[in-house]
């Protein structure tokens, strides 16, 4: 919406080609482009126009979508899934990802999964077993192990700390 408003205001001809993706139909003078960039920045919207970075962002978006929206990560062949969706070999995507982000796709997936686990744990609506199931871990032990490996803390310790922080803040405010 915001993006379209801005593009319309600047009278830039464009076509929406996908989620968060726009193809601009004619050459924009640099000054206009910079204006667009600046005004979008105020809304926290960043323009990614470097082909490598665009591809990396797409990989990240696919992974985040798998973890957050579908709530169940496909059990096997995540690599094939990503490769197929982006029409690039997984090897190529892997190399590019590491080059640009200094981290592997696998690590990124683990990080995002644990990030989601943290979110659910903080909500405090589910048991750890349910959290593990929700995130498609084969067992609570698997979740706990990966959690501890990634953060150095067990999920239980993590939850305890967040709860203590919250009650400490409440005491301060009152």
């Amino acid at each position, binding site marked *: 919406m915001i993006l379209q408003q801005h593009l319309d205001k600047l009278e830039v001809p464009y076509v929406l080609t996908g989620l968060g993706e726009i193809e601009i139909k004619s050459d924009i003078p640099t000054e206009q482009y910079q204006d667009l960039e600046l005004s979008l920045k105020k809304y926290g919207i960043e323009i990614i126009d470097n082909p490598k970075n665009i591809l990396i962002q797409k990989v*990240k978006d696919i992974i985040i979508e798998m973890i957050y929206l579908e709530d169940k990560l496909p059990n096997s062949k995540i690599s094939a899934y990503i490769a197929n969706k982006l029409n690039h070999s997984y090897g190529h995507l892997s190399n590019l990802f590491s080059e640009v982000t200094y*981290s592997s796709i696998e690590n*990124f997936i683990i990080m995002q999964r644990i990030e989601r686990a943290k*979110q659910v744990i903080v909500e405090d609506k589910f048991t750890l077993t349910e959290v593990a199931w929700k995130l498609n871990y084969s067992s609570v032990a698997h979740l706990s192990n990966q959690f501890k490996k990634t*953060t*150095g803390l067990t999920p239980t*310790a993590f939850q305890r*700390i967040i709860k203590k922080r919250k009650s400490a803040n409440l005491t301060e405010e009152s």
Partner: protein
Amino acid sequence: MNDNALHILLADDDEDDRLFFKDALDEVRVKTVVTTVNDGVELMNYLNQPDVRLPNVVFLDLNMPMKGGMECLREIRSDNRLKGLSIAIYSTSASEEDIEETFVKGANIYIKKPNDFNELKRVLSEVVSINWHYHTSGLNKENFLLSI
């Protein structure tokens, strides 16, 4: 995607430790820009400058003269302006309870000071990489906890 560097502020009263730290960081893949201060008072003075470019991560030695790590932690966490800072506390040793207490008080990272340089490099690499991800991938800093 940020092509910028990760800005790091280190507070440590030991000159050798400061040097080791900087050397270890030189070998980390993520680009970093390091500023150092010698104690807690210098640290807070630095952060409280009106137009200062705030770092992304602050590394605090628990045992500092003038103003200790825990006190700095408390001050930083009670300042809304500094909300976006990741705080890494490090210390030579601590019990699990003390470590948890540090997290409860608002630290994001707890580092058990490694004995040798290679280990320090490994630890810093890990810490910097994770911070870089928090900086570039929009992860939730409120849930950012790392014990290493």
